[in-house]
């Protein structure tokens, strides 16, 4: 496959040296600890400390803010490599590296950047609050409000399914600063909220289908007073635009999670195909099994290529169609590969004792968050139609 573009990021040698170490770290440390994470439904504190020391929370923050200054293709490749292991390991880093880091980089004031970026790079955990009980895909319909009161804003409302909420020190919270919905969603603003502020309650972690070791919860805001300088960029009405700017990266990150995990799943299917015997032969000798393996490989390779291309394009500017396509295709692919892995395992694939069953449950979220497949279809089609009408299509 083509090289990882290093333009605007870390130099290629340093990056190669790091991915080498990371691959080993994944194989020798993260994977052997998976059983423990599954049993405890938590990453052991020591291991989390090690992940911080490895620099995994600082990949995307600029060097002057204590990070490693990776560009989009390098960040996405790193997530792909990391995602060969249990999804919880990516999940705990994902909000720091993705949404919150890009929002701060793109829209934060100098004070906000120098306050938060080094802390995030060092591994203080962030969460991102957009979804609410009454609004998911239609997130601009949110009900949480932020009202100006002298030198403060007062937040009221609730957020739902918020990844890392139980661990977060910083919340990037989207709230209405205008009761009326406005064009370009200018009624939404973004706030950098210290999660220890009075009036914030985090609900019990939700019970989920998969992704054990990673946690989501509700966040309730009850007259939460935050200083006015918690408003991202110091300007009202920019919240939604900021979130949208970071979407390409977020989608590519899910694409990378899907590709990395699908590789693990396919390797597991290959191993089983070489071990299990039926009708006096290893099942890998049967052409119907081979067809499942071959389809999986072809689709995974396609997704990897899309991901790399979309990341290179996103590095240069907007790549809405490419990033949405890569996320949509990769996440659906991961689910198909996981489904085949179960099938190849026969009865064993249905049992919790085998990894295939877990892969199937873990993969399911990838077609839902950071834009459901249906929402992405709309995004891709709308942008294509718009580009075509304006003559911008190639």
């Amino acid at each position, binding site marked *: 496959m083509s090289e990882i573009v290093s333009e605007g990021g870390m130099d290629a040698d340093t990056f190669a040296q*790091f991915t080498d170490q990371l691959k080993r770290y994944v194989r020798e440390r993260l994977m052997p600890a998976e059983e423990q994470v599954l049993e405890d439904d938590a990453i052991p504190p020591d291991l989390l400390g090690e992940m911080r020391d*490895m620099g995994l929370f600082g990949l995307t923050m600029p060097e002057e803010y204590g990070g490693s200054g990776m560009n989009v293709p390098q960040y996405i490749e790193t997530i792909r490599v990391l995602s060969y292991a249990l999804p919880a390991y990516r999940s705990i880093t994902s909000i720091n590296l993705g949404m919150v880091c890009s929002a701060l980089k793109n829209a934060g004031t100098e004070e906000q950047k120098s306050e938060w970026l080094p802390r995030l790079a060092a591994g203080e955990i962030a969460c991102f609050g957009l979804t609410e009980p009454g609004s998911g895909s239609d997130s601009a319909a949110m009900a949480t409000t932020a009202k100006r009161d002298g030198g403060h804003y007062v937040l009221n409302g609730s957020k739902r399914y918020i990844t890392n909420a139980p661990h977060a020190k910083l919340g990037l919270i989207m709230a209405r600063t205008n009761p009326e919905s406005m064009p370009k969603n200018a009624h939404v603003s973004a706030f950098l909220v210290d999660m220890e502020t009075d009036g914030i309650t985090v609900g019990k972690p939700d019970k989920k289908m998969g992704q054990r070791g990673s946690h989501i919860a509700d966040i309730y805001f009850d007259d939460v007073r935050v200083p006015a300088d918690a408003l991202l960029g110091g300007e009202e009405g920019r919240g939604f635009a900021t979130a949208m700017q970071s979407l390409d990266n977020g989608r590519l990150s899910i694409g990378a999670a899907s590709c990395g995990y699908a590789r693990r799943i396919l390797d597991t299917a290959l191993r089983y195909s070489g071990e299990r015997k039926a009708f006096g032969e290893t099942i890998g000798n049967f052409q119907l099994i081979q067809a499942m393996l071959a389809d999986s490989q072809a689709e995974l390779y396609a997704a990897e290529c899309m991901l790399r291309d979309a990341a290179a394009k996103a590095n240069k500017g907007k790549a809405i169609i490419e990033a949405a396509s890569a996320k949509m295709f990769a996440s659906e692919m991961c689910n198909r590969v996981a489904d085949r892995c179960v099938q190849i395992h026969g009865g064993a694939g249905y049992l919790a004792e085998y990894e295939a069953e877990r892969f199937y449950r873990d993969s399911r979220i990838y077609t839902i968050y950071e834009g459901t497949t249906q929402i992405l279809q709309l995004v891709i089609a709308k942008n294509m139609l718009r580009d075509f009408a304006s003559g911008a299509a190639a």
Partner: protein
Amino acid sequence: MKILVPVKRVIDYNVKPRVKADGSGVDLANVKMSMNPFDEIAVEEAIRLKEAGKADEIVAVSIGPAKAQETLRTALAMGADRAILIETDDDVEPLGVAKILKAIAEEEKPGIVMLGKQAIDDDSNQTGQMLAALMGRPQGTFANTVEVDGDSVTVKREVDGGLETVKLTMPAIVTTDLRLNEPRYASLPNIMKAKKKPLDTKAPSDYGVDIAPRLKTTNVSEPPVRQAGDKVEDVDALVAKLKSLGVA
């Protein structure tokens, strides 16, 4: 106290080596290369001694092709302070390596030269011993634990049936065994810092030693494929089978 740590660039331990068709050696084209695992243990031990305040500088040295720079960068990223590459595309045998290391040790004056007990490519297990002999200094090979106290270093050695303890007066040569420690991973921040650490490049000729090969490899071949076993029904059948094979 300074520690000199020689590190070798070898075929990665996860790679299944392939022998060249003409039997002249192992095919290294497009094969992943890494630091010899025993040398990683040596680097780790040196760093731990430095962290414990027993050493104040760690110098990593590699003898090999330009690409061995990567191996040195890994040592620097783990925590070595500076590095020396003696660049050569020739195959340098353990004796040649030991001679170069002796010359470097004379310049650098380390308290300990910490080597891997062997490299996983040629499994020679000679360099440390040869270096000790050439330098006329004590050696503690197959180290299981290393303790520095004043001007001596105590090494527990892994020997058949247990551990043997030797106390060496520094400067001394120590070679590391597998169980000495578990080497750390180079973190991303340290990999980035390592780029700014000094790495000198020299040539074998700078040391005026004769490194011409003394050995000739006549043939390299794949290990024989293990024959599949036979299953027998019961003990009687087993005994009969062994008899028929002439082993019982």
